[in-house]
């Protein structure tokens, strides 16, 4: 175990963090609502190479992508980094701009596909076919999180079958594992940033003559939150690492990281909002941005409880 970033990783993180700090401040995040997409930011990110590095020949390990996804979460960057990375790895090439449906299509329609309101290519599992459908971005399904969700009719565009049968299922499953690991990293970034905001506020905001962070009721909850965030950082990074380097563990860890990530991000963002008192609800404070996004990421694949159940079968049922 060696948890220090390599110098390459550090350079990558520094560059992208600097870029997002400059180009994706909270004002830009707000300005991109309700579509949740900043086209200018995305084209700059593409120029930087963050979209192409995800490709099989782009040289990046999944862990590298996870480190970038953390920053996308931290800065709430309105770009489909995770979707494009996962879709790019399925397609083996970059298309302007591809995404992937997280749930199997029903009657040929993939519902609420992340980034489909801004993408020109949607990958989906349609029965026993893994398909990519190209066309124009689809109409936004406006939502609480200001995410560019859209429903996608898989017969309405230019449809290409990428794989069928077991191969289709396996490739889709692998892509979802990668999505889970990267989504866990985004959730970590959201949670870590919500925690930072809470801690800073708790130090500065005074009530009854002292900083509210001096009250145990807040300090102790923040300690629990900080512990959960630290655990999430470790688990999400381990999941991304394992998908490349410890294949027998990768799927299990990605599922755990994603589910745990959803719980942590919702709790920490909710706590942070709560500590702000009435201010947390003012749209001009940033923490509500985190609160709204965390919830969608955590339910994007459907009921997390059902996912825990499937994980339990997978881990412990002799049958599976």
């Amino acid at each position, binding site marked *: 175990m060696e948890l220090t970033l390599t110098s390459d990783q550090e350079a990558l993180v520094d560059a992208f963090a600097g870029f997002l700090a400059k180009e994706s401040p909270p004002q830009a995040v707000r300005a991109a609502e309700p579509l949740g997409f900043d086209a200018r930011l995305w084209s700059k990110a593409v120029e930087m190479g963050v979209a192409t590095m995800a490709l099989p020949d782009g040289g990046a390990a999944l862990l590298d992508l996870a480190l970038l996804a953390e920053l996308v979460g931290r800065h709430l960057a309105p770009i489909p980094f995770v979707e494009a990375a996962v879709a790019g790895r399925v397609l083996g090439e970059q298309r302007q701009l591809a995404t992937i449906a997280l749930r199997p299509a029903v009657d040929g329609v993939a519902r609420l596909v992340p980034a489909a309101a801004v993408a020109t290519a949607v990958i989906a599992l349609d029965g026993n076919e893994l398909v990519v459908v190209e066309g124009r971005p689809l109409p936004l399904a406006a*939502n609480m999180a200001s995410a560019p969700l859209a*429903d996608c009719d898989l017969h309405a565009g230019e449809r290409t079958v990428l794989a069928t049968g077991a191969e289709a299922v396996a490739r889709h499953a692998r892509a979802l594992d990668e999505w889970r690991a990267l989504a866990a990293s985004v959730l970590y970034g959201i949670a870590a940033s919500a925690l930072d905001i809470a801690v800073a506020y708790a130090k500065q905001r005074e009530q*009854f003559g002292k900083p509210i962070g001096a009250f145990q009721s807040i300090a102790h909850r923040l300690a629990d939150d900080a512990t959960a965030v630290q655990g999430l950082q470790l688990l999400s990074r381990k999941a991304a690492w394992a998908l490349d380097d410890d294949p027998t563990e990768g799927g299990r860890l990605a599922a755990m990281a994603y589910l745990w990530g959803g719980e942590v991000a919702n709790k920490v963002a909710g706590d942070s909002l709560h500590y702000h008192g*009435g201010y947390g609800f003012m749209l001009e404070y940033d923490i509500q941005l985190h*609160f709204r996004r965390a919830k969608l990421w955590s339910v994007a694949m459907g009921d997390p409880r059902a996912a825990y159940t499937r994980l339990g079968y997978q881990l412990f049922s002799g049958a599976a």
Partner: protein
Amino acid sequence: MNFASTERAESFRAEVRGFLAEHVTDEVRRRVEETGTHHDWGLHRAMADRHWIAASWPEEYGGLGWGPWEMNVLEEELFLAGAPRDGMSLTMTATNAIHHAGSDEQRRSVIPRVLSGEILLCLGWSEPDAGSDSASAKTRAARDGGSWVINGQKMFTTMAHEATYVFLLTRTNTEVPKHRGLTMFLVPTDTPGFELQPVHTLGGERTNITFYSDVRVPDSARVGEVDHGWDVMRVALSYEHGTSWGAHLERLVQRGAAWARATGRIEEPSVAERLARAATDAEVAMLLGQYSAWVGESGRISDVEASMAKLFSSEALVRHSGELVDVIGPEALLKDGQPGSVADGDFEHAYRQSVVRTIYAGSSEMQRNIISQRGLGLPRG
């Protein structure tokens, strides 16, 4: 001992339910949603016509003499119907204090117009640096001859844009401990120097920041004694404690169950389980509220009981609104009107709104202080 509601209360319930079915129309709900102003003049005046605005007051003062129990029924039904009620509840919090602590002139000039549904009042308590700790208010009122000059700023002056008066907490003395240098005023919102700025919130409610720049009011605008504003505040705060918060949760459970039945998802064990848990918490929440009302009905102070009801139901609402979104999945987060949106966007709305309920009218932390100190007799920290 018995848990049956009274016939009288249940006949009120039926009457209230029928009234609300008629007056809380989809159009009313839509307007509330769009503006974020949880008040509807039509509903408000129709309620005033029935003397329901101050139904707990004696008939001689324009009320109906309802006890806390009947008031709890009324509030439960308002919550269950999703009726806008900020206007009436804020107004009555202030009006109760004026009724107890105001001058004869104030009572004469304000109360009849409140009871007729003509005007609203709002509460100017919170400040940027005084949230839970209202007594540390800094908005200054300075005597100038026979009048007072007020300067400062208030946060979260909800309904100020519809109200005729702000029931304002000011500092009149900085030489004494913070609770002893406060004075209350009734400030007309058309006084020069009064300004407001809308504040939009996560839950969709609109509130306001209100600004006071050399706002001049006569001494007759003062409510209660100079420097004894905290006594007046305490009267007002005692009326701020509702008892029927649990009805929010009950409404959520009913909507969730209707959705689960309609989609067949109720057949999934974990969906049935989560709804049953939510329904159990709703039952407890309603009972804690009813208990608080009953203690009040018995003529005893019910501050601890009211705190328990408020604490439990608001925290449970946060848990279960989140759980319901989980059950439904991303569709739960679609905005009302989007193709495929669920239950008019009620669940995403409940999720956004729920956290604020653990803050306003006394944060969960303040409620826990009340319960542990006044209820359990634990020492202050």
